[in-house]
């Protein structure tokens, strides 16, 4: 995970010269302490509210499930919690991985031309278009997802048009299907794909493309051997930043789907807030992390073995 995350972060931040410590002769000792003092408040926050809860969650996932909040839990290292959770909720785990995977691929296919157009075809409209990519964030996530409910509803325009197409059955619907959930996921996480893609495509030197053209490469060839390899850091970063939140999301499944489309996030949410089954909820959280980890690592390996410079 570390390597993958590091890659994501490295690609997400535009490159520049490596950090150069400004060393002065005086105050060497104080200087050595400075970074730690700067890190202290934020680091403590992360330690206290991220590391400690994560460790605690790992402990909770192994508690005896017969306990409750009132009677207290006993630590029995019940690894069986994981087996129980997989046994009961493997369809949800698979759905999370599947829906998020499909949504990520669609985001890549949609996001790449958009990022490329902004970086190289937009000219002086570049800033405006970039703002347009971020702008939907400001209409609350939930309100936008509910708007999809209107767009995809049985009486809505999309279904109406599709039903008029020959061979499409009259009872065809989009809402409450996997397609609607994936559509919502694509919509909600597309900006997370576009921004890192844009960052790496923007740095692409136009002269390299011209050189490829001068050497009689067709545009497709240029894309395959010049543009795509050079934008690979952006592709990897965008994929991770899209896939991870999409795999953990449950709002789209809840609002645009039915219990038949519920993802593992829905189960974690209800285990924590409705059923109050903390050990199982914790075990499911770690299973979700493990699913993400496996998919991310195999993806990064696959992306890394290609001839990527």
């Amino acid at each position: 995970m570390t390597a993958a995350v590091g890659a994501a972060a490295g690609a997400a931040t535009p490159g520049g010269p490596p950090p150069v410590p400004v060393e002065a002769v005086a105050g060497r000792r104080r200087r050595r302490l400075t970074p730690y003092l700067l890190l202290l408040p934020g680091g403590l926050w992360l330690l206290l509210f991220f590391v400690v809860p994560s460790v605690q969650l790992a402990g909770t996932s192994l508690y005896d499930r017969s306990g409750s909040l009132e009677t207290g839990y006993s630590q029995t290292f019940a690894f069986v919690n994981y087996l129980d959770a997989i046994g009961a909720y493997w369809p949800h785990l698979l759905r999370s991985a599947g829906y998020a995977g499909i949504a990520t691929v669609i985001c890549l296919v949609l996001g790449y031309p958009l990022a490329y157009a902004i970086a190289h075809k937009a000219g002086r409209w570049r800033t405006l278009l970039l703002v347009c990519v971020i702008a939907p964030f400001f209409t609350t996530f939930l309100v936008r997802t509910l708007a999809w409910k209107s767009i995809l509803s049985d009486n809505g325009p999309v279904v109406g048009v599709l039903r008029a197409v020959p061979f499409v059955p009259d009872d065809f619907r989009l809402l409450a299907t996997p397609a609607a959930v994936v559509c919502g996921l694509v919509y909600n996480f597309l900006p997370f794909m576009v921004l890192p893609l844009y960052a790496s495509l923007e740095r692409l030197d136009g002269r390299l493309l011209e050189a490829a053209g001068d050497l009689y490469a067709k545009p497709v060839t240029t894309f395959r051997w010049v543009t795509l390899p050079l934008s690979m850091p952006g592709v990897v970063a965008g994929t991770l930043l899209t896939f991870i939140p999409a795999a953990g999301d449950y709002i789209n499944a809840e609002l645009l789907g039915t219990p038949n489309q519920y993802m593992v996030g829905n189960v974690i949410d209800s285990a924590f807030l409705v059923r109050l089954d903390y050990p199982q909820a914790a075990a499911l959280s770690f299973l979700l992390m493990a699913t993400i980890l496996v998919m991310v690592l195999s993806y990064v390996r696959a992306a890394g073995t290609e001839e990527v410079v």
Partner: protein
Amino acid sequence: MHRFWRWLADHWVLAVGLLVLAYLFLPILVVFLLSLNRPTSRLSYDLSAQWTLDYWLHPFATAGIGDALRVSVGIALVATVLATVLGTLMAFAMARHRFRGRATANVLVFLPMATPEVVLGSSLLALFVTLRVPLGFWTVVVAHVLFCLSFVVVTVKARLAGLDPRLQEAAMDLYADEWQTFRRVTLPLVLPGVAAAAMLSLSLSFDDFIITNFNSGTTVTFPMFVWGAAQRGIPREVNVIGTAVFLLAFVLVLVVQLRGRRKARVV
């Protein structure tokens, strides 16, 4: 034939890009239309034939909506200030200094970004429950600072990495002391990055539902209000506020961006 391909490549990409952008704006258009439309029934998400300006004239007519908005803005402001200050300090440490444990600090900053929100929210809830911390305004602030922090660090660090260290060296050569160099050279150069990070925090915090849902107790933020209302039928005023916040933020970001660009050209 070659020219045809070139033409197609040029305009094809732009056309597809604009179509994708239209896809991003489609729901916002729907939100706007819904804000002008009187629903036929409470649970209906379809547009009716009745158009009205009522919701825009009385956006806070539904009970609770104004309070929820106020809570959201309050939490977003507090969380943004905290996350921006803490994150900027961390970014300085990580971009400007070489020290033991730098790699660990990097991992610590990026892990929250790589953790799904359900897991972040639920693990924090478990902590608060164990420590018997009452859930409310401040637990939400703690959670929001946590997930905004990493984004601030990354944004400010990117800005710092792009700066030419020779500018500071030049200032020091001209007998500016460390504080003067920081105050007069480094800070003004980093400020656009800090502003961008603060904007990002503000929008992330204002928009967040999943983590908030775990840690808010009985405190109702605007997204929480929408979620609660969704079960009983969304009041159309929600769409008014959605559209208004969008327009406000869009104009604000655009102004900041354009001004930043003009300044960048001068430097």
